[in-house]
């Protein structure tokens, strides 16, 4: 019996080995990868005329800095380059790039005539020796040269990662100066990378917590210019400004745009009670959204405009709630220990970022819109006020070290790549604008 079994086995094995085996590929399954920055090379842009040469290095530096700052990429320094890119259209010697372990190669060219410039780029997958996507070209004014570099960065980032980029975007924030007890705060705007800072208010009035309109053309913020918190709406291009959402006898603050940019939701405090209101910017019509003897503030629309998330202390401590955008029953979604504040819906709609304080420390975190899968991304003496990059992959926030000045920081939604955003002086309350057209 045993013998028979053995014999059968051998026979079976023999058959198995000699029939379809030859045609069968070796099959493997890989479930564990690595997460590490991808090495890229960004040689200077090839100047296509002499006027272009003054931008050839600068453009490359901006692109390289953008990619490096994501934490997803790592620049192989030019000093290590073997091949020299001297013509935009020449064929690429991939082996030279492979030899220094470059995986993505960006080549560019720039041509300037008068105050117009044309910037071109190509992206190559060095390992496979193939171009990724088509070459692209941007044309515009030389004053916008940084934006051109941001456009190139966005395209490269998008082609490699599959996400839309966020480099050609701006951030509105509060620029601070003066003693802590009587801080001067000014509304300011800058490029996403901290360049081109521009002050929008003169600092005579205290201003806090701005937001950018979905189209990026307006900002709304809280100002103390009347001596009490009021909401100001300002046009970023013209500087034209008006106070909106007056409720006699109430302090109004914490304004946020709806996704269509046509209305605001904000807080009004009076009689020891803070409620949410909605203001139609066109008609001036107002609608009260909450009416409980508690605080409801820091609202944020879902990107589809159907819901509003906000914080309220109606349960006794500050927690996060979600309600229909027209008001109605609110559902509490935060249940962890500690206090939850400043919920902000991600532009993708899948996550809500928040500030959490617990056991004497502050965190920036994200959770799903039903409150599940809470993840804390940061921890410090004081972190607050998250704002999303337009692609929903990066969060910027205010960090104040113990005894230090506030500064702007960013972190990606995995909790990696914590970085300080350079600002000219102390800064707080960042509000990330949309990707520019």
């Amino acid at each position, binding site marked *: 019996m045993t013998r028979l079994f053995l014999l059968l086995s051998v026979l079976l*094995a023999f058959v198995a080995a000699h029939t379809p*085996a030859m045609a069968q590929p070796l099959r493997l*399954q890989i479930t564990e990868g690595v997460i590490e920055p991808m090495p890229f090379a960004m040689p200077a842009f090839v100047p296509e005329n002499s006027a272009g040469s003054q931008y050839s290095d600068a453009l490359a530096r901006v692109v390289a800095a953008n990619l490096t700052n994501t934490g997803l990429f790592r620049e192989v320094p030019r000093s290590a380059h073997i091949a020299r890119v001297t013509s935009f259209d020449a064929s690429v010697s991939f082996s030279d790039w492979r030899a220094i372990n470059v995986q993505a190669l960006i080549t560019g060219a720039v041509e300037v005539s008068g105050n117009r410039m044309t910037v071109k780029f190509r992206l190559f997958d060095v390992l496979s020796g193939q171009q990724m996507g088509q070459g692209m070209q941007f044309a515009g004014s030389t004053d916008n040269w940084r934006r051109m570099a941001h456009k190139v960065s966005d395209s490269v980032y998008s082609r*490699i990662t599959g996400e839309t980029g966020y480099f050609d975007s701006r951030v509105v924030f509060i620029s601070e100066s003066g003693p802590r007890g009587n801080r001067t705060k000014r509304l300011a705007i800058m490029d996403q990378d901290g360049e081109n800072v521009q002050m929008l208010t003169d600092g005579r009035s205290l201003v806090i917590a701005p937001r950018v309109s979905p189209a990026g053309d307006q900002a709304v913020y809280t100002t103390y210019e009347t001596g009490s918190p009021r909401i100001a709406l300002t046009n970023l291009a013209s500087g034209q400004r008006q106070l909106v959402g007056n409720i006699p006898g109430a302090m109004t603050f914490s304004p946020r745009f709806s996704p269509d940019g046509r209305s605001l939701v904000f807080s009004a405090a009076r009689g020891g009670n803070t409620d949410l209101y909605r203001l139609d910017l066109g008609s001036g019509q107002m609608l009260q959204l909450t009416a409980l003897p508690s605080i409801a503030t820091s609202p944020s629309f879902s990107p589809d405009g159907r819901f509003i998330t906000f914080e309220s202390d109606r349960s006794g401590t500050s927690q996060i709630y979600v309600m229909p955008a027209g008001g109605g029953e609110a559902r509490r979604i935060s249940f962890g220990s500690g206090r939850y504040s400043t919920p902000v819906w991600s532009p993708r709609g899948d996550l809500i970022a928040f500030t959490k304080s617990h056991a004497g420390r502050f965190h920036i975190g994200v959770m799903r819109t039903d409150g599940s899968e809470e993840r804390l991304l940061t921890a410090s003496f004081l972190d607050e006020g998250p704002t999303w990059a337009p692609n929903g992959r990066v969060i910027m926030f205010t960090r104040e070290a113990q005894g230090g000045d506030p500064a702007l920081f960013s972190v990606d939604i995995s909790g990696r790549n914590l970085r300080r955003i350079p600002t000219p002086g102390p800064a707080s309350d960042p509000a990330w604008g949309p990707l520019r057209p």
Partner: protein
Amino acid sequence: MGVARDLWGRMNTGQRVSGVAHIGLIVWVMVFDLFQVPDSAPRVPVTDVSLISAEEFAALTSPGSAPPPPPDPPPEPEPQPDLAPATEPEPEPEIRAPEPVQPEPQAAPQPEPEPEPAPAAPSTGVVFSPLPAPGASVRPRPRPVDRVAPTPTEAPPDTAEVDIAAAPPAEPEPEVEAEPEIDLPEQVETAPPEATTEIVTEATETDDSATERAAMAPEISQRPRTRPERPSPPAETELAAAPAPEPAPAPTPEPATAPESPPAPGAAEDAIAQALAEALADSPATSPQPGTSSTLSASEADSLRLAIQQCWNVGVLSSDAQQVTVTVGFSMTPSARHEQGSIRIVSASGGSEPAVQQAFDAARRAIIRCEGDGYGLPPEKYEAWRDIEITFNPEGMRLR
């Protein structure tokens, strides 16, 4: 060539740019004009970058100057909003606190200040230079490393050369010429780049248990070694008839469901071990053709798998692409390198077409990047590994 390099070294940047441009021009005229190469460069679509307004431009070019004076604070001509709806009794009476007001919660109502005395009074001046790095933590805890890999790796000792492919580069020194050694990275003995087994955020760092767990990691991690790493003990069952290929440097290939894996204290390691176990258990490579020399042993297949997985970088994948499981097929040359142009998608699931493309790109990079001089597979079993299909499943690596 030496002369040229010497010359290059003496030139300043302007001269170099100019020189390069001139040479480029000459070459271009010579090569392209004479031979008129068929347009290898695809047409570039033109996108006009939208321009900013004149005012905005003016403002941008004179940053810091007084902002445009708020055009006469509009004497409060605010659209005196119709307050009627607001003052009306609650528009939606059904608003109810989901929970009775006034419960006690507040576990820790009084945030304890950090014990340390306050550092010097905050500077009131404007700080113009960026602070160094975000507050480096005081406690000796694992720092977040920008590489996450299945096996934790210590920072290489100073003497070891760090793999240029994965180590953060030194400060770029644009003036320095490329060192010729760089041509031969494969021959340099390199240490694997520093890595952690999980993403360490600030928040997890402050979690005590995580800290402890992570603090243990370096102790159990292996020394830096050259790759490809030796396979961890294979645990697969081989078909009875298979002439159990010796090597398996590992202990008891017991039941397939309980693969031996390196002793893994700590939850993180457990998780990894488990994932590894699943991977091993699932791996069809372990149960292919029996007998004869045309069958790869489990450890041989595993070493190939490990070699490729350590080059599979899911970090740059979009969250959509991280949902994609892609099976990639390719052929090997007898020297155990992929055959040019043979890498293709066999099947994919879980994502849109662009996401599948990203996932495929990453898989392809993994296969090409780690082959070096070849994957070191036994030539006598070429038939067994000539055609390969690898399924890349990022489920366990998803960021969220």
